[in-house]
């Protein structure tokens, strides 16, 4: 692809690449919290790109997307922590040293499990109209969370609300990202290494998304989004193509989830609440539904927002009012809500919308003037 790109694009890509490599070293002196926020931004980019396949490309509103993230995260957590061997003696007998599956084996497992859940959910509900689909997926997300919260009895699978701890970090060969030691005479911090890993995965996800968008499948998704009946008339197998969107989106969520579990070393059901699904949705709506660079922009902006607010809004309130009136977490949700409503009303195609395709799913008044009735 790069061989076809004009030199200006290549120069810009090179500049972005250098900036991404240098970023943790530039931002590091302001505190590890910023580098951590960057790591989470990369995870959110993966999530947003996955959800964008479902909502942005195929036009299916999914409000339970975070459930696939949870499936990925718990898969890795169970496969790479002492939890299962501690609670199931038979398993402990078979694996006396614990079940320490490498992340490179666990990620495909988690991703395929998430995809399987996507198909399981999608197969019966995808024929539903947009807003019904939204509510069913929301219900699915809540069901997964309720099960994660309660599957600690009578057999302890998920350890309930307290979550699973002691999850193995990412290892590449015998090299442990949590305890890096010296590489080539350098002593990089574990956080920086995770940053490079996660950003690398996010870039890979971007590449996959861009290639998907230009593919036959991507065009089929967009055709369905614009007009399902017309797409069917053009010979697109609507059901299968929608299912593919659902399961591919879920795959992204599953991979991001596995990386999240490894990065945190800990997972609990509260990371997978409906609020998280809505946050990811706000990211893609704000950035520009269906437009990969826009989605990445939205994800990075909203993911960095809490950290930025902690460093600006809190001291600002302290200086002006003498105390903190609105803490940064609440302010973040307030801004998410305002941004979602404001963008829909005044800039319905997002901050960085796709250049072509006049009638995207939120293209304003270009489509039918009055909803059909009867």
């Amino acid at each position, binding site marked *: 692809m790069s061989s076809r790109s004009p030199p200006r694009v290549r120069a810009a890509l090179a500049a972005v690449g250098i900036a991404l490599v240098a970023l943790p070293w530039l931002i590091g002196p302001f505190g590890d919290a910023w580098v951590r926020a960057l790591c989470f931004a990369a995870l959110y980019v993966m999530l947003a790109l996955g959800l964008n396949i479902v909502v942005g490309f195929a036009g299916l*509103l999914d409000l339970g997307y975070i459930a696939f993230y949870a499936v990925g995260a718990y898969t890795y957590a169970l496969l790479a922590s002492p939890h299962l061997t501690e609670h199931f003696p038979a398993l402990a007998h078979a694996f006396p040293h614990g079940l320490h599956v490498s992340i490179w084996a666990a990620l495909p497992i988690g991703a395929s499990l998430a995809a399987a859940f996507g198909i399981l959910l999608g197969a019966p*509900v995808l024929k539903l109209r947009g807003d019904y689909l939204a*509510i069913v997926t929301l219900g699915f997300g809540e*069901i997964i969370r309720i099960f994660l919260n309660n599957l600690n009895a009578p057999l302890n699978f998920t350890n309930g609300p307290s979550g699973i701890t002691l999850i193995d970090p990412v290892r590449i060969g015998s090299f442990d990202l949590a305890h890096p030691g010296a590489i080539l005479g350098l002593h990089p911090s574990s956080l920086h290494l995770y940053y490079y890993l996660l950003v690398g995965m996010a870039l890979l996800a971007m590449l996959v998304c861009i290639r998907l968008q230009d593919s036959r499948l991507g065009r089929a998704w967009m055709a369905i989004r614009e007009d*399902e009946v017309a797409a069917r008339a053009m010979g697109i197998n609507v059901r299968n193509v929608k299912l593919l969107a659902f399961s591919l989106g879920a795959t992204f969520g599953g991979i991001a989830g596995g990386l999240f579990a490894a990065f945190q070393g800990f997972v609990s059901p509260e990371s997978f609440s409906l609020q998280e699904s809505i946050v990811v949705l706000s990211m893609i709506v704000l950035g520009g539904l269906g437009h990969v660079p826009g989605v990445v922009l939205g994800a990075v902006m909203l993911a960095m927002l809490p950290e930025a607010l902690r460093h600006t809004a809190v001291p600002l309130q302290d200086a002006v009012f003498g105390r903190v009136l609105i803490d940064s977490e609440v302010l973040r949700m307030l801004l998410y*809500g305002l941004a*979602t409503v404001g963008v829909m009303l005044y800039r319905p195609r997002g901050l960085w919308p796709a250049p072509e395709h006049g009638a995207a*799913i*939120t293209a304003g*008044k270009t489509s039918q003037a009055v909803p059909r009735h009867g």
Partner: protein
Amino acid sequence: MDTLVQQLINGLVLGSLYALIALGYTMVYGVLNLINFAHGDVLMVGALAALSAIGVLHGLWPGLPGWLLLILGMMAAIPVCVSLSLVIERIAYRPLRHAPRLAPLITAIGVSILLQTMAMLIWGRNYLTFPQLLPEAPLHIGRATISVTKMVVIGLAALIMGALLWLVQATRLGRAMRATAENPRVASLMGVNPDSVIAMTFAIGAGLAAVAGVMIEATYQVAHFYMGFIPGLKAFTAAVLGGIGNIAGAMVGGIVLGLIEALGAGYIGQLTHGIFGSNYQDVFAFIVLCTVLILRPSGLLGERVADRA
């Protein structure tokens, strides 16, 4: 047997509450084809406003009897919810009335986040206790019990639903609402102003939500900024179960869903030999929702075909 009677009573109470909320969803859906995602949060604001009003009134006149406080609290909640709902409709939904259908749904989610966050700022993020305003002593039916509050919930819900059916079937406004739901363009040719009918629909739905919100906190004696979400979701399920857009359907759907949940929670432990407990109660509603949507998308009483791609 005792469990059965007790769970039937609980289910009826729960179902009456769901039905009241479901009416708001179904009426708005009927005229606009919009899932008003913020409906549950309007309910929450009403409930918390009533709680504050009751607190203030009790502070001013400590001698006021409980039932009067409850009525006054409800009277305070209704205008709050109605005006809030009208503002939301005017600012967030009306400009998007002719936009593709995902746009107003996403806006509604944004409004829902905003309402929750604002409520958290005003009332704090802790659980607030709602005072016991009606007599505490329960009535006994066999070995099952029902509190006065629960009886009031059932009675009030029945009364309100009767009034609403009369309003929709027998008044001028009701006829205008049915006409707008059928076809807004033709309705406006017949001299109906769709904007005011839609606003009235939102107002009535919000009023019902206010009553439901106060009754929820009076029954369970807690209130907090997130209390509207789960009832809202369940009520939407109830509306779909009954056939969305259908007013009688919302009532039937609410009661049926309440009974399913209460009986499910009451018996799941016995049926699965303790593997699943009543903490899975919330799962039933979603399973019902998925089943209905897959097998009979038009709902129990729905005459409209739900598939309009």
